[in-house]
């Protein structure tokens, strides 16, 4: 059973992302929303250190929140994709449970 995780704060201001990554398992999806968008660089650094994608995790950002923070899809590394609101709902449907880190 896979899980959708949403993270809504920057790792500089909270340990939400660390906690999330500690429990997330392969097949899970981490969706960055609100100020969680700023974790894109943190995930990119982690992926670079591990030399691979994050242990089979799917990583996404909410498109509206991305652009609201002055970023664009072209700023994202290959392993992070942007989803719109409908995509957020689809992710919630695709994963039987969800954990919301806030």
């Amino acid at each position, binding site marked *: 059973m896979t899980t959708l995780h949403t993270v*809504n704060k920057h790792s500089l201001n909270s340990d939400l992302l660390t906690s999330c990554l500690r429990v997330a398992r392969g097949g899970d999806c981490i969706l960055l*929303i609100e*100020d969680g968008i700023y974790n894109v660089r943190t995930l990119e650094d982690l992926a670079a250190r591990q030399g691979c994608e994050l242990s089979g995790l799917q990583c996404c950002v909410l498109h509206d929140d991305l652009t609201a923070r002055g970023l664009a899809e072209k700023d994202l590394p290959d392993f992070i994709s942007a989803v*719109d*609101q409908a995509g957020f709902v689809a992710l919630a*449907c695709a994963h039987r449970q969800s954990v*919301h880190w*806030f």
Partner: protein
Amino acid sequence: MKFTIVLYAAPYSSQASLSALRFAQAALAQGHKIVRVFFFYDGVHNTSAFSVPAQDEYDLVQAWNALILVHEIDAVSCVSSALKRGVLDAREAVRYERSGSNLLESAVLSGLGQLVDASLISDRVVSFGA
């Protein structure tokens, strides 16, 4: 698919209320059903009809009210969270001898059992907080 949405955050203090509202709108647009919206902790402020934002600001409380009414969603404000934050319906205002009531017309005050019940009858529970 049946969704329950739980909102823990007040409007305007953070983005959470708007995030939850957008998610609800997107889910309904896709033909999903929202079984219940449960306003919890500071989230009960989303059900205060006394909220008066500036004219050029988005009226989150009325947006929730409209969504709930149009789609006939069951909206519950946690009664213990609401009373201590000054969100009262007419009955509680009389009971506690307060001068007025402010609970949104589309919401009701009820207990945590409503969240448990919603979790049991929903396929997915999605939470938003500050």
